[in-house]
């Protein structure tokens, strides 16, 4: 077994799924919304990037590869805003919001993916190569362009987002809303506007993940479902609402996935993963965050 390959794979998966998990985590804790429309956001970003690429090539415009990435992020953010406008803003102050919000996102997912299927047809699309075909080798570890690019860009974006959340006023706003939405409105934070920021942000993360994943897989209406499940399980494992927990969980589950795939076989990935998650959660109902953060309990 080559430790290097396992490590690289684990890191790549951790980066991509970690972005989704952090999105889910932030959405749940600041908006109280379980966003199951990730599949749709994911597919929307992929199709958006593909469609704009197709239009540009039809018009004989050469898009730089980074533009594809940016378009994916923007399309993801747009889908996030759409989900926010439909599933959060109208009902966030109504009774039984958590359940209704979750079902609303499922409905959006159903409509969105079926709509994409109906519009684009069942054939999967592939995006152009973004990072080219180079590779670097260091101490026996081979980093291909794809993995290096995925790791680099996701860490870059994630780092920027976390820094922004830590230091800026908007970030304080979002974190305040994560702690206590009622008190947040009392200090003058607009819940709906913050909701829009949060959803655009998480949508952008999902869009980036979609474009990065489509380098290895294809763009299809249901491509987002497996990443959603992975993201949800990482978010659960890390503890909903905890960014640090999600990062650790992403690394743990990434290692688990890479090790399982390399030792037992790809089809057992989900089984070992869920065994791991259930084990963690049965010990700590709040996931890894429950171990990290002692100040959470009121």
């Amino acid at each position, binding site marked *: 077994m080559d430790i290097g390959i396992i490590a690289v794979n684990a890191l790549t998966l951790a980066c991509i799924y970690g972005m989704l998990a952090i999105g889910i985590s932030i959405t749940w804790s600041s908006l109280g919304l379980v966003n199951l429309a990730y599949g749709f956001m994911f597919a929307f970003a992929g199709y958006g990037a593909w469609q704009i690429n197709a239009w540009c090539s039809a018009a004989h415009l050469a898009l730089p590869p980074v533009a594809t990435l940016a378009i994916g992020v923007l399309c993801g953010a747009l889908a996030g805003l759409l989900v926010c406008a439909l599933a959060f803003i109208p009902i966030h102050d109504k009774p039984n919001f958590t359940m209704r919000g979750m079902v609303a996102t499922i409905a959006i997912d159903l409509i969105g993916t079926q709509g994409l299927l109906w519009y684009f047809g069942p054939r999967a699309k592939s995006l152009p190569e973004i990072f080219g075909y180079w590779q670097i080798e260091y101490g026996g570890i081979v980093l291909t362009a794809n993995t290096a690019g995925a790791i680099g860009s996701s860490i870059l974006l994630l780092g920027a987002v976390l820094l922004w959340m830590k230091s800026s*006023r908007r970030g*304080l*706003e979002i974190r*305040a809303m994560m702690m206590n939405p*009622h008190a947040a*409105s009392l200090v*003058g934070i607009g819940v709906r506007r913050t909701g829009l920021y949060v959803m655009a942000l998480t949508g952008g993360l999902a869009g980036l993940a979609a474009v990065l994943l489509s380098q290895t897989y294809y763009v299809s209406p249901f491509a987002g479902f497996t990443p959603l499940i992975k993201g949800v399980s990482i978010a659960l494992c890390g503890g909903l609402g905890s960014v640090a927990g999600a990062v650790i969980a992403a690394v743990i589950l990434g290692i688990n996935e890479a090790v399982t795939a390399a030792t037992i076989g790809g089809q057992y990935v989900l089984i070992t993963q869920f065994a791991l998650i259930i084990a963690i959660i049965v010990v700590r109902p709040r996931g890894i965050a429950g171990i990290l953060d002692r100040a959470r309990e009121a």
Partner: protein
Amino acid sequence: MADGVQEILRVTSLSAGYGALRILHDLDLTVLAGERLGIVGLNGHGKSTLFLAIAGLTGWQRGSILLNGHEVGGTRSQGPGRYTHRVVRRGLALMPQGDEIFHGLTVEEHLDSGAFTPRAWRERKPRKARILEIFPPLAKLMAVPVGRLSGGERRMVCLGRGLMADASLFLVDEPSLGLAPKIGRSVMQALMNIELGGAAMVIAEQNVSLLEGRVDRIIGMHVGKLKGEASVSLSGAARAQG
């Protein structure tokens, strides 16, 4: 205004409630700049609802609320809290009953979150210093998450957060509730020591003895109506003459 004193808040024929339940019955209230007003009344007679209605947090409300001359009330029957942030930006600081705190933020971040208006955000350093003068025990706790503080300290943080804002009207709901009498008195004393300047403060309290002689006016509240203005204290009378 005619007499030279500016009105901070003018509530006219305000009714509010939740669903079929009506809690405030057509009440009027005026708060002038620079005054401390006490509202006393028993549990469940609408003191907190009055504050929540001013902040737009009740189920529905009717009647006009002028805050610094801007209408923030009106007929509203959507869900609570939709417009609260706008009212807050007009200069309201509500310190609600029980501590509405952000458990995970440190005391410093917590005070920052109070200074949400752009001007207050820029001036947040001197303001924090001022708040530490009012509540000296907080100075040592600046880096501690609020979730680990004791009840009295939390109340101080909560009041401090309200004071950080660029507010012209402070609504303080039951500052002594759930605290040991001694701590309750010291919190109340700190409230009395705050320099109001052009702002005004309304304190709701069940314990009249904590307010007596220290606020400019005391108004009673009974079943959703304001009942008579009792005991204009000496300082208020002196101000009226001067």
